[in-house]
C-alpha cells in the first residue's frame, strides 16, 4: 500500500534549474547595486572560485581516493592560459572571449593533468603526493622563468576583469552539475569502485589506468577554469599565488568538508574563504585557526564534517512527501 513516492528525474532536474536561476538572479541584483560593500562583493566571487577548486580537487581526493598536492599548479596553468588569451583577444566580442578563454583554460589544464597523471598514477599514496607536489612547484618555477610570456615574478598585469558574479556562479553551477552527472553515470561508478577496492575493480573489468587518468584530467580541467576565473577576478597574476600553500589550502577545504561529499567541499570552501576576512583582527592567526580546526575535525569526525553525505533538495522533498510512511527499505536505497 504505502508505496514510496518519487519525483521523476526530469522534475528533479527542473527543481534544480529553478534553484540555480533564483540564486543567480538574486546574486546578480545584490552584487550589482550598492547594497554590498566592495569587500563583500570581492569575497563572494572568491568564495565561488574556491568552491570550484574544492569540488574539482574532491574528484581526485574524495572520489578517486588519491592525494594530489599540486592542485594550484593546474589552477596556475588555467589562470595564465586564460589571461594571455583574454589579453590577446580584446577586440573580440566580450562574451565570446570569456567563454573561449574559460574553455581553453580548462582544456590546457586537463592536458597537463593527463601528462602528469599517466606517470604519477602508477604510484600510490605518499609517492603520488610527492610527484604532484613537485609538479606544482615546476609549474610555478616555469612561470617565473618564462618571463617573456608570463611576466615572471613582477606579474602579468592588466588582465581584463571578466569575472562578474554571473560568470563566476554560472561556472560554479555548471561545474557542480557536470561533476554530479559524471559521478552518477557508469563512469562515475567505475571511479568510485577504484576508491572502494582497486583489486576488486580490476577483477570486474574496470580499466584502472583509464579511469584514474580520466578522473585526474577532470579534476585538472575544473581547476583550470577556476584559475581562469581567478585571473579575471584579480586582474593581475603573480607566481607566488600558486605556491605549495595554495594547494594545501584547497586540500584542507576538501578534507574538512568530507572527502567524497560535494556539499562538504562547498561549505568548507565558503567557511574557510570567509573566515580570514570575517576575523580580520585575527588575520595573523589564520594558520593557527586552520590547524586547530583541522585537528579538532580530524579527532572528532575523521571523515570530515559531512562524511560522504550529499545534499539533494528533491531528495528532501521526497522524504517530506513520504513523511507518513515509515522509513522502510526503499529509503535505505537512496
Amino acid at each position, binding site marked *: 500500500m504505502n508505496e514510496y513516492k518519487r519525483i521523476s528525474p526530469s522534475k528533479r532536474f527542473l527543481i534544480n534549474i529553478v534553484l540555480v536561476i533564483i540564486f543567480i538572479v538574486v546574486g546578480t541584483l545584490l552584487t550589482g547595486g550598492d547594497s554590498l560593500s566592495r569587500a563583500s562583493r570581492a569575497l563572494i566571487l572568491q568564495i565561488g572560485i574556491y568552491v570550484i577548486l574544492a569540488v574539482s580537487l574532491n574528484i581526485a581526493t574524495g572520489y578517486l581516493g588519491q592525494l594530489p598536492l599540486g592542485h594550484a599548479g593546474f589552477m596556475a596553468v588555467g589562470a595564465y592560459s586564460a589571461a594571455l588569451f583574454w589579453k590577446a583577444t580584446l577586440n573580440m566580442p566580450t562574451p565570446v572571449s570569456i567563454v573561449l578563454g574559460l574553455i581553453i583554460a580548462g582544456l590546457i589544464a586537463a592536458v597537463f593533468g593527463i601528462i602528469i597523471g599517466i606517470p604519477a598514477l602508477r604510484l600510490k599514496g605518499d609517492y603520488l603526493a610527492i610527484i604532484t607536489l613537485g609538479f606544482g612547484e615546476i609549474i610555478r618555477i616555469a612561470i617565473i622563468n618564462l618571463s617573456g610570456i608570463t611576466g615572471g615574478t613582477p606579474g602579468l598585469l592588466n588582465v581584463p576583469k571578466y569575472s562578474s558574479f554571473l560568470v563566476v556562479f554560472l561556472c560554479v553551477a555548471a561545474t557542480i552539475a557536470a561533476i554530479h552527472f559524471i559521478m552518477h553515470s*557508469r563512469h562515475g*561508478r*567505475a571511479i*568510485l*569502485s577504484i576508491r*572502494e*577496492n582497486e*583489486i*576488486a*575493480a*580490476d*577483477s*570486474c*573489468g*574496470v*580499466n*584502472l589506468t583509464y579511469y584514474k587518468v580520466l578522473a585526474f584530467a577532470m579534476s585538472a580541467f575544473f581547476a583550470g577554469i577556476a584559475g581562469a576565473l581567478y585571473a579575471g577576478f584579480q586582474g593581475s597574476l603573480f607566481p607566488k599565488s600558486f605556491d605549495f600553500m595554495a594547494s594545501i589550502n584547497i586540500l584542507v577545504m576538501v578534507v574538512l568538508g568530507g572527502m567524497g561529499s560535494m556539499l562538504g567541499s562547498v561549505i568548507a570552501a565558503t567557511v574557510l574563504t570567509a573566515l580570514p576576512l570575517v576575523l580580520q583582527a585575527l588575520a595573523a592567526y589564520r594558520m593557527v585557526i586552520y590547524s586547530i580546526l583541522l585537528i579538532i575535525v580530524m579527532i572528532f569526525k575523521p571523515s570530515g564534517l559531512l562524511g*560522504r553525505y550529499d545534499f539533494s533538495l528533491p531528495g528532501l522533498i521526497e522524504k517530506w512527501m513520504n513523511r507518513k510512511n515509515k522509513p522502510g*527499505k526503499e529509503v*535505505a*536505497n537512496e
Partner: protein
Amino acid sequence: MADTILKVEGINVYYGNIHAIKDVSFEVKEGEIVTLIGANGAGKSTVLKTISGMLRSKTGSIEFMGSSLMRMAPNNIVKNGIAHVPEGRRVFAHLTVEENLEMGAYTQPRSGIRDDMEQVFSRFERLRERRRQIAGTLSGGEQQMLAMGRGLMSRPKLMMLDEPSMGLAPILVDQIFEIIKELNDNGTTILLVEQNAQMALSIADRGYVLETGYITMSGTGEELASSDDIRKAYLGA
C-alpha cells in the same frame, strides 16, 4: 574429449627480484573443475593474478580460447570471459549488494543486467534478502557469496576462485563448495585455488600441486587425494 580452453605454458613471474612462479604449465579443459593446491606462499594466487592480467609473466604463453592473454589488459580479459574472484572477499564495502553486482556486470550490456542479477539471486537466496544492504555489513560467508555472484555477472566461461573457503565456518565451506559444483554443472569451467586441499580435491576433476613456485605433482582429484605425499603434506594423515 573436451577442448582445452585455458593453456598456460612455461610462465615465470617475478615480484622484483623474487622469482615467485617457476616454469609453470597446466591446462584447463572446458567443463572441468581444476584445482591448484599448495601451502601458503606457494604461488597459487600469483598464478591466478597472472592469468587475469594483474601480473605479467616474463616468459611462456597463456592462451584462452585461442587468444593470447600475455599482453591483454585486465579489463579485456574480463570481457573475453574470465572472471577472477580475488582472495579475501574483496567486495565494495560501501556499496549495496545490488550495486556490487552491477559493478560485476561492468563489461556487459545494460540490457541483460536485470536477468543476470535474478539468476544470481536465485542461486544465492541470502543475497536477495539483503539486496539493499551495504556489502561491508554482510557476514563473511555472505560476502564470499557476493564476490562469487559479482564474478558471475560478467557471464564468464571460466571462473577463477581464489581461496573461497578462507576464514569461513565449516558449514559455510560446505555450502560454498556445493555452489561451486552447481555452477560447474551449469556449464561454467572452474579454476579453483585452495589451501583446503581435501575439499578442493573432493570436487575437482583434476588437480595440480604447487610448491614454492613449481608444479610438483598433477593428476585426477582421486589420484592426488590418495597419494601418500599429498596426504602427508596437506591432508594431515
